[in-house]
């Protein structure tokens, strides 16, 4: 679309879905022991962030919301995983052991998820959710899934608002009571929320059939592949091929060899 601020924003959502998914797939399949490869992935992702005009600040800000969850899960792995002991400490009766295998698994999880999260941040900053949905639909994602996601996106806030209103109504008339009483009231509120959601779903369905809905969601095709999309995807695929095949290292060797050659000359 013409009014995009930068190249990545203006891409067809399909190109972004395809290329970002391929990057993530390649990363997941790369063994963690090839640490250098991940450096290259990181460079590739940085390059994309650069052309998407996303500042490191933006990435960090959003990343730090998610990182604690991953850390929390991953932090215990080095201690739990069985294997060759790398480091151990004795505290009273407790014997803490960190194993090589554990450390690798930890790195595997952290590095791959952090890189994937950065990609997701870039994707979400350059694509609106409706555009993403249409991209998914045009890539022949099962229609039901797309419709479900679009309804979720549309009504999750409405539902949250409704819950908030119920809580507020309760808070205004709540002056402290026994725990059993409070649980009963929370039960009521969940029930009411469920009924309201159900009623709303019925009304929405009515609104859909009145406007001729017969089970098939149609939409205006807003996107078209342009040569820029083609260039972007090819660029990503070629970079991935470079990384996966290890050609980069061979180039490095060639250079060194050349240097030797030069010296020899």
């Amino acid at each position, binding site marked *: 679309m013409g009014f995009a601020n930068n190249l990545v924003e203006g891409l067809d959502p399909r190109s972004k879905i395809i290329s970002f998914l391929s990057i993530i797939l390649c990363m997941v399949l790369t063994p963690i022991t090839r640490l250098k490869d991940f450096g290259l992935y990181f460079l590739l992702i940085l390059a994309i962030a650069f052309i998407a005009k996303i500042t490191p600040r933006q990435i960090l800000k959003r990343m730090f919301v998610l990182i604690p969850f991953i850390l929390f899960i991953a932090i215990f792995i080095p201690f739990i995983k069985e294997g060759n002991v790398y480091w151990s400490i004795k505290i009273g009766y407790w014997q803490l052991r960190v194993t090589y295998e554990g450390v690798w698994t930890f790195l595997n999880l952290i590095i791959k998820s952090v890189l994937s999260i950065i990609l997701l941040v870039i994707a979400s900053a350059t694509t609106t959710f*409706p555009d993403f949905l249409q991209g998914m639909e045009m890539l022949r994602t099962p229609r039901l899934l797309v419709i479900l996601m679009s309804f979720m996106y549309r009504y999750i*806030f409405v539902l949250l608002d409704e819950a908030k209103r119920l809580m507020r109504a309760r808070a205004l008339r709540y002056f402290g009571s026994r725990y059993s009483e409070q649980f009963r009231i929370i039960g009521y509120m969940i029930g009411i929320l469920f009924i309201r959601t159900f009623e709303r779903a019925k009304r929405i369905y*009515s*609104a859909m059939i009145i*406007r001729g809905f017969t089970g098939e969601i149609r939409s*205006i095709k807003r996107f078209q592949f342009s040569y820029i999309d083609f260039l972007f995807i090819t660029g990503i695929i070629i970079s991935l091929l470079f990384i996966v095949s290890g050609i980069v290292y061979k180039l490095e060797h060639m250079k060194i060899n050349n240097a030797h050659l030069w010296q020899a000359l």
Partner: protein
Amino acid sequence: MASIIKVSNLNYRYPDGTVGLKDVSFEAEEGETLVIIGANGTGKSTLFMNLTGILEGDGHINIAGLTLNKIQVKEIRRKVGMVFQNPDDQLFCPTVMDDVSFGPLNLGWDNNEVMAASQKALALVDMEGYESRTSYHLSFGEKKRAAIATVLSMDPKILLFDEPTSGLDPRSTSKFINILYTLKSQGKTILIVTHDIFLAQGIADKVLVFSEEKRPVAIGSYKEILSNYGLLLKNNLVHQHHHGQIVYEHEHRRGYIHERL
């Protein structure tokens, strides 16, 4: 002129036993604007649901020469557009444009026709530039206008509006009245449910009064109905103040709007 809507002896009872409509009969002629007034819970919304076949009551409904039944209901829905009381029920797509184009796309129009009709509808309600906005983040009045556009884009012969101006500010209300005049001049048949009896002024060819018995008790011109204080008072459409004078709801507000029109 021929009757484009003909309802006879329509009864509707909700599954929980509540009476929604009781022996409703009325007719509307082609190109006519019918304003339906009535207190809360008198069955006005239920009537609209029945006219579009969402609820199925007992009785006979004929719309544009077609009898409302399981087979013809689809054909009827091509001719009837309805705007719900609550815009959150009407706007279910991710963006405003998706919502406005939903109907035309289902009518099987091609991309260009759909785009043109949607743009035109958005322009009519003064919502150009809102195409890619998320409907959830619109203000109530904007939602209401977008909801109206979702029906205008389908260009139906018959339009049902359920409380289209509730929650709108005076400027949006007078804008809506202008839209009504445009639609009227295009020969559309329009049914409007409203609590704002003064909305009917100037635009209503007929006013239909619903009573607590869940059925119409009077039909007549705006003048006839409004001059019948007894009728209005009995049906809770005006209220008597303690100082004993009859006060029309919103009278002052309406006066203000008509000055500006």
